[in-house]
């Protein structure tokens, strides 16, 4: 997946066009490579539209080319490639990235002529490696939230959490433990994530 980084975050108004929902989804690269699409730039996973994605992985390859730096990031589930123009690398946080370093990426999933890519607009080195574990735990939680029956119509909106703060359908805000075979698993995950260390 080749793409370019941009020095500043892109114009969201033009990027999202008519979309009303802005999402920031933490994904594993395996999830990212398995998203479904119904058009050039309409991606979805677990029933949720994808706008911005968050990825944490290790810089597995880094090639200095004439006008750009080519990166390959591997999170253990798959790989992603992106390019950074040389002048942007020096002026932004990308200049601090080194081979073998763990980084957090934010970008927009795009498609051009049938080929998917990620426009990476933010690259930050991981300093505390608990963030590495937290990212994957968050991927699991968001996947559960968006797919399990206890949140049938919820859209997890990281970009605007006040709009949809973990909402469920109005008549079934809490899971029904008597009819829900997944209640035990959900409760176990919630108990784990509600531990003080994670709040």
């Amino acid at each position, binding site marked *: 997946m080749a793409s370019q980084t941009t020095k500043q975050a892109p114009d969201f108004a033009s990027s999202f066009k008519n979309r009303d929902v802005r999402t920031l989804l933490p994904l594993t690269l395996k999830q990212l490579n398995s998203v479904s699409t119904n058009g050039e730039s309409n991606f979805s996973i677990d029933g949720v539209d994808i706008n911005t994605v968050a990825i944490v992985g290790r810089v597995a390859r880094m090639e200095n080319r004439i006008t750009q730096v080519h990166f390959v990031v591997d999170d253990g589930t798959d790989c992603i490639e992106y390019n950074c123009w040389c002048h942007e690398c020096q002026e932004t946080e990308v200049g601090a990235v080194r081979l073998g370093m763990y980084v957090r990426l934010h970008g927009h999933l795009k498609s051009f002529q049938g080929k998917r890519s990620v426009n990476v607009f933010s690259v930050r080195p991981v300093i505390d490696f608990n963030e590495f574990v*937290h990212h994957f735990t968050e991927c*699991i939680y968001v996947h559960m939230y968006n797919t399990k029956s206890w949140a049938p119509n919820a859209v997890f909106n990281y970009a605007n959490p006040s709009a949809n703060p973990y909402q469920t359908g109005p008549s079934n805000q809490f899971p029904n433990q008597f009819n829900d075979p997944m209640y035990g698993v959900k409760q176990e995950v919630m108990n784990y994530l509600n531990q003080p260390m994670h709040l």
Partner: protein
Amino acid sequence: MDTSSPSAFVNGALLGRLAGRKVRTVVQVIGSEIGSVVGKTTDDVQIFVRGSSPAPLTTYVEVIGIAESDNSIRAETWTNFGNTFDPQNFNELCKLANGEFKHLFM
């Protein structure tokens, strides 16, 4: 080595199930000698990690490599994870990543 192939998150209990496959784990360093490191997995299993480790090693180290047996890994990539890493969280992640949510990882 193909650094782009998936690597399964493992703890001590899962390591034996994935012999011959590429794995990744975090160990607490107990001791080191030339060519190998003795470490304790996040579920308190002592394993041997063979390979050239970086120096110096922090308390917690992530290793990515090939599982040779239920208590040894031939490491190809080492990353110092510092001294404040939480092994319990990683241990729980290993269980989830190899259980119900395996499809998100492998």
